[in-house]
């Protein structure tokens, strides 16, 4: 006992002495300059292992007291490389600090971590948040077009918050999703349209584009394999903003915008319409008396309340000039231990279609704090409320193309010689459709619904409450080891609410209809990783990540539909209705259990190797467990001696060759219980039943993508010009296809892993800074992607996949997917103009023989005849269509330019898609010879023998000659376009003017979206998708509302 006490005492004394010795001070002084010798003030000087610090003064001088033990001083300064200076035996030092090479510090997000861009060997393209902030879009990806090679974005319609068609390196699936995996701050996000009403509700709209720091788009197997079975469509990592070192910063960003539809077709006015339709009736009757019923069919003008003939431009009632505004305020800051970013945003946008609005309130709070030397905690709270509002279907979302309530279609079909109002001010309503006024026609129909009634009375709204949050704990017991545990959630609560008036439209048949459905979509994910960073013998840099993850997703939906309104004055679900139906039922659950690892190794930053591997087990699959992987290698040649010897280093500032190969999967869109044969309950005559539902496939599994990628990247002339070139080849196997089974078995189809497809292509990105002077600079970035897609195998019994535009019994099938062609190729009947002799449309049957069509023929005659007048079999798509046109752009990309002159900045972004066709189905409707209104094209119709024109002799009732019943090649147009996607001019207010107002920075700008376009496409916009994100239904334009042109004026202020 004594002995121990004594020992303790001795030890204590020794320690004290040691401590006392360490206290022996001396002072070291120094002067810090930059490379040019200018003094640097505010440089932090620290003693490693001590809390002591000093700052350099205005002359760059510092003074700090050190102990004998101190061998180094550490100097750090923002924008400069950190220097360590030996002070042993020195009383004063002179330090020259070198500016940081920004390209060396650039990092890319690679999944569960970041990597220096210089060291990355996978293909990742980074788009900075600034590029898409301030844009009048609802979600970030709508502004991504043209900004990254390999990325194809198509904004499908002017309906607000419609998810853009988003493809990375082509369409990579047929019946599953081709949408990339979106990972927001480490948590896989929901994607797609979560609204079940006529207002679109893109799940990604919850992320305020202003809150995004960067978007890293991973494309090849090496970069994506860490996401294993979900990586085949590419992975987009979204990183939201964090606080940056310095004092608290308050920023306000706001804009007001004015939006307008463009490219609307030029329709006949009331006078031309009336004359033209009467001519069509007369022509029909001249061919065969009694061929038009009723016998007194006649189109006639009606005088309006002003005593003048009614002449209605329906677009004026459907579209509007929208006004939008958006405001964001954020507060951010950081000190050595804690950084925070807090942002509040509000946006209220009016679409080009009346009553189509988007309103979002969102809050984001990012916080990270180092609570001790080795422990860091952090998290993110993000809440967003989005209101997606519409009165009635626009006819523009997937499946809506043929709806009779579709506003875009109504505007083109309804007769211009009738008004939405009767002369007494009441609505013009017929028995089922809009009233005919003085027109006398079969069924009293000269249009579909009266859009004004529906716009006034109906609602079709959807409200999303979206929570995306996470919390994490990081433990760094050793300098080379980091352990991290992250728990994240992504919850979407969707409230759909519709009302259809009983007086007119879709609600009339059921004497009014209202519904409210509620959907809960919840994801939680728990990720645990360990990361080892080690450098051996200075040159072997090793980075190893291992981790495990589990993710559970649940979905629940329920709702009610009520019909038969007791009093038309009611407008809400809770009012008086007599019929109640359960609707919106959904219940699903899936679970994904994964483990993964990544090894990065480089030797002397010259040779790079990386390997990623992930094992996923997914509940919805039959074969649940799969291993996915990607390997890559890179070689930075500029660091080789021979390169320098050859003098190439004077030309190339960098030159890297890289390549990767790997296998990843796609499971997006596989139903939760696809493996199981299910029985559902139903009712038979009021009694419960147990009925066989669907046949499961117990062996269903992921689609497999084998991706090869080879690329070079190099910089020329001190990186004044940099280029990245990559060739890729993606072979997709085991495509999940719904293979029809013999109906004799009593079953429809079974999902099977059957088909094969490939995408291959070339990506080129060029960045240049041709001019950089003090007052003027020009930065330019150009990218182009060449993509070739081809289906190489379908399934036995599945020779073709016809994709409907529209839905159910009303629709057409212009897109056809068969082996040997790109997915969704156009399968159309060929035409050969108008016969000058007779004014009939010339069709070509499959053999190429001309067959002419006349809608009304004398009794006993044939509608279809050969050139010699002999009867021909009717032309049908099934018998006569051929594979004629490509629906997928073969080249696409963008060209982004930023000019700065003194305080002015000008950004010009051009985007383009080339070498593809758009099937303009709307064009068939625009020339339909029933009561439908037509474009002014028909004014050059065939009138007499010998007329050479492209517009047939009008015969009332003819819905065939222009392709409204058979999809025709003449309605497929070259869709190549180049668009002035964005042009914005900004002015940064000089600091001298701001200081008095205690404002640290201010910029005002004016910008325009979609200001101009070069294209031969006759429709509103070749950037269109009537079938939304459908993989096989691209490039169709059927009754879709146009896109919007938007002018915004904005302001950023920093305090």
């Amino acid at each position, binding site marked *: 006992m004594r002995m121990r006490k004594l020992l303790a005492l001795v030890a204590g004394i020794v320690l004290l002495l040691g401590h006392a010795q360490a206290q022996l001070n001396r002072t070291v002084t120094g002067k810090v300059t930059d490379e040019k010798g200018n003094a640097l003030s505010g440089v932090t000087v620290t003693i490693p292992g001590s809390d002591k610090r000093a700052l350099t003064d205005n002359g760059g001088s510092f003074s700090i007291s050190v102990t004998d033990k101190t061998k180094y001083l550490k100097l750090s300064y923002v924008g400069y490389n950190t220097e360590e200076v030996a002070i042993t035996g020195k009383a004063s030092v002179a330090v020259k600090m070198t500016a940081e090479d920004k390209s060396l510090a650039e990092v890319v997000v690679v999944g569960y971590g970041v990597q220096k861009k210089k060291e990355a060997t996978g293909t990742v393209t980074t788009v900075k948040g600034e590029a898409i902030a301030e844009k009048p879009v609802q979600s970030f990806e709508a502004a991504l077009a043209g900004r990254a090679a390999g990325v194809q974005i198509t904004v499908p319609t002017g309906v607000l918050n419609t998810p853009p068609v988003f493809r990375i390196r082509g369409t990579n699936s047929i019946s599953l999703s081709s949408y990339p995996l979106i990972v927001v701050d480490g948590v896989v996000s929901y994607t797609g349209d979560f609204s079940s009403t006529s207002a679109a509700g893109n799940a990604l709209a919850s992320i305020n584009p202003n809150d995004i720091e960067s978007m890293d788009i991973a494309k090849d197997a090496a970069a994506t394999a860490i996401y294993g079975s979900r990586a085949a469509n590419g992975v987009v990592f979204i990183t939201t903003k964090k606080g940056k070192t310095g004092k608290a910063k308050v920023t306000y960003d706001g804009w007001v915008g004015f939006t307008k539809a463009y490219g609307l077709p030029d329709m006949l006015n009331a006078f031309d319409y009336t004359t033209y339709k009467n001519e069509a009736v007369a022509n029909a009757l001249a061919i065969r008396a009694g061929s038009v019923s009723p016998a007194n069919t006649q189109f006639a003008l009606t005088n309006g309340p002003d005593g003048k003939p009614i002449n209605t431009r329906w677009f004026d009632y459907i579209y509007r000039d929208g006004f939008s505004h958006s405001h964001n305020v954020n507060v951010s800051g950081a000190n050595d231990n804690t950084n925070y970013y807090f942002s509040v945003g509000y946006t209220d946008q009016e679409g080009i279609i009346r009553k189509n609005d988007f309103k979002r309130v969102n809050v984001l709070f990012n916080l990270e704090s180092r609570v001790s030397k080795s422990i860091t905690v952090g998290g993110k709270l993000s809440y967003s409320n989005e209101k997606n509002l519409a009165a009635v279907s626009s006819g523009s979302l997937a499946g809506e193309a043929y709806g009779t309530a579709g506003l875009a279609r109504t505007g083109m079909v309804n007769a211009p010689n009738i008004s939405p109002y009767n002369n007494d001010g009441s609505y013009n309503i017929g028995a089922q459709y809009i009233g005919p006024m003085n027109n006398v026609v079969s069924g009293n129909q000269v249009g579909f619904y009266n859009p004004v009634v529906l716009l006034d009375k109906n609602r079709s709204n959807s409200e999303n409450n979206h929570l995306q949050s996470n919390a994490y704990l990081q433990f760094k017991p050793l300098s080379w080891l980091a352990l991290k545990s992250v728990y994240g959630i992504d919850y979407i609560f969707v409230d759909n609410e519709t009302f259809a008036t009983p007086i007119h439209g879709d609600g009339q048949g059921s004497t009014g209809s209202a519904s409210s459905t509620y959907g809960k979509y919840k994801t939680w994910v728990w990720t645990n990783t360990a990361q080892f960073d080690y450098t051996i013998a200075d040159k072997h840099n090793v980075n190893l990540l291992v981790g495990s993850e589990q993710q559970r997703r649940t979905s629940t939906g329920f709702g009610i539909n009520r019909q038969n309104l007791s009093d038309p004055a009611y407008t809400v679900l809770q009012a008086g209705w007599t019929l109640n139906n359960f609707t919106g039922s959904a219940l699903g659950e899936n679970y994904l259990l994964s483990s993964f690892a990544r090894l990065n190794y480089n030797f002397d930053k010259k040779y790079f190797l990386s390997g990623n591997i992930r094992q996923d087990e997914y*509940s919805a699959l039959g074969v649940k467990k799969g291993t996915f992987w990607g390997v890559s290698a890179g070689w930075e040649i500029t660091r080789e001696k021979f390169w320098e010897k050859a003098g190439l280093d004077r030309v190339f500032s960098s030159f890297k060759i890289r390549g990767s190969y790997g296998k990843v999967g796609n499971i997006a869109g596989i139903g939760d219980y696809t493996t199981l044969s299910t029985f559902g309950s139903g009712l038979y005559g009021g009694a419960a039943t147990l009925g066989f539902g669907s046949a499961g496939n117990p062996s269903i599994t992921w689609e497999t993508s084998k991706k090869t990628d080879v690329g070079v990247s190099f910089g020329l002339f001190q990186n004044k010009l940099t280029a990245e070139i990559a060739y890729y080849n993606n072979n997709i196997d085991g495509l999940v296809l719904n293979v029809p089974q013999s109906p004799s078995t009593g079953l429809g189809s079974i999902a099977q892993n059957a088909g094969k497809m490939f995408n291959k292509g070339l990506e080129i990105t060029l960045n240049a800074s041709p001019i950089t002077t003090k007052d003027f600079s020009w930065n330019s970035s150009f990218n182009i992607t060449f993509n070739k897609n081809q289906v190489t195998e379908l399934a036995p019994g599945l020779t073709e996949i016809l994709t409907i535009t529209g839905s159910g019994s009303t629709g057409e099938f212009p897109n056809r997917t068969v082996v040997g062609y790109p997915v969704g190729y156009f399968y159309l009947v060929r035409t050969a103009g108008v016969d000058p002799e007779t004014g009939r449309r010339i069709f070509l049957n499959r053999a190429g023989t001309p067959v002419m069509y006349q809608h009304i023929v004398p009794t006993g005659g044939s509608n279809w005849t050969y050139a010699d007048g002999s009867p021909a079999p009717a032309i049908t798509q099934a018998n006569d269509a051929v594979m004629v046109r490509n629906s997928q752009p073969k080249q696409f990309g963008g060209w982004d330019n930023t000019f700065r002159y003194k305080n002015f900045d000008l950004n010009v972004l051009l985007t383009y898609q080339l070498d593809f066709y758009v099937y303009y189905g709307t064009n068939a409707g625009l020339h339909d010879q029933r009561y439908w209104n037509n474009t002014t094209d028909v004014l050059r119709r065939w009138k007499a023998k010998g007329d050479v024109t492209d517009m047939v002799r009008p015969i009332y009732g003819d819905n065939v000659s222009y392709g409204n019943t058979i999809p025709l090649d003449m309605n497929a147009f070259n869709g190549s376009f180049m668009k002035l996607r964005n042009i914005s001019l900004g002015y940064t207010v000089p600091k001298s003017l701001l200081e008095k107002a205690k404002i640290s920075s201010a910029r005002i700008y004016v910008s325009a979206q979609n200001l101009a376009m070069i294209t031969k496409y006759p429709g509103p916009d070749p950037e269109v998708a009537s079938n939304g994100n459908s993989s096989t239904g691209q490039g169709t334009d059927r009754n879709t509302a146009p896109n919007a042109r938007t002018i915004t004026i904005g302001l950023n202020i920093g305090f």
Partner: protein
Amino acid sequence: MKLFKYFIYTALGGSLLTGCSKELDLKPTDGFTDANAFRTIADAQLAANGAYGRYGTNANTIYSTALVSDETKIGADNAGQGALTFRYQYSADGTTGGDVTAAYTGYYQMIDQVNRTLDKLPTVIATPAEEPRRNILKGQLLALRALAHFDLLQLYSKAYSANEKGIPIMLTSNIYAQPKRNTMGEVMTQIEKDMADAFALLPAVTPSTFSDTVMNQVNINAYRAKIALFKGDYQNAVTYATNVISSNVKPLASAADFPGIWTDANTTETLFRIRYSTGTTMGALWTTTGNLVYIAPSDKLIATYGTGDIRKAAYIGTYSGTTKNYVNKYFNSSKGGRVVDMKAIRIAEVYLIRAEAYAKLAVPDVNAGTNDLNEVRSKRITGYTNATFNNAGDLITAVLAERFKELCFEGTRLFDLKRNNLPVSRNASDVGSAAWQTLPAGNYRFVFPIPQYELLANPNNVQNDGY
């Protein structure tokens, strides 16, 4: 270091342990799977209910055959519904042949439901008291399977000839099956066997225990009579029909009761019906709930009813103040507009089957046949005086005319014409073009096409002639 270890164990090990692979076996909770759908006899009963419900496909048969025959014309508010079918422009393709190919899928779905249930039936749990239900359900299911095969045979094969192409016989559930077509003779043998087995398994029926919503000995005999007539086995047709008539469970309705059959006010004549408690499956085929007449009764049909024929008012409606006629058979009930049960087979048909069979016996019994015909007519026509016929041929013609009047919109007309090798002859006023006024006797369109998607998915099947 302790903290470090603790962290490692919790973070990595912990997550792997809680992330249990058992969690990967998720099953739906809002439906059943193969593994748990059939536990008790009650589940088998629910599945049988499902099989009955699937006989709703017969509504499509009634509709498509009415479109092809001379019972209907295109209605005033038609916007294309059934028009291609009416104009004989249908094909095997789903886009133009939807009306005529839908039944193929529908009946085989019903057969699959039956086969799945039959497969599980022996092993479901039943209490001793419930045990007799096992055979009853088996009998009902076998009868339903026979019925579905028979309807397929009527639609997709020619008039009966044992060696002609029949339809695939399906007796087990197999999702990957690619069956070939059996001959009509083989299918007929199977139908007769299933009906006979069903009859043997089911208990005897009395007027008080009879139910027209399930298969039982009486309505099985009614179908056996109908099947025998189709086959040309007239002696058996007479025998089975006589069994039904003499069971007396459903005598012919009085003039007072008759209209109520068609509003579901009574079920005086129905031997088997499919119930609709809220659905408009039957009614809205002809006229929508919004009173749009898609398919109207033909002028030819309306003209056949003489004065005093109570069927005209029961079958044909006219919107007041217009000349717009509509099919009144499935128009209204107390359950709602167009919510009307499907009458699958009625006693009147059994009388007319027997009348035709008597006339077609090797040694025709014209008197007995005439009596049956007069029996039906006297119930339908006020002040009717009995007719007499000199020969079997005249009687057959009269019976067929009577079937047209009595059984219109019940899915028999087209089959009657086909069975007797007669043409469809429509009135000029019922058609828009002479091109579809007549379908010559024996034309290939009397046999509906096998759906194209069956041929694509099943290389062993073959298309009917002409398509």
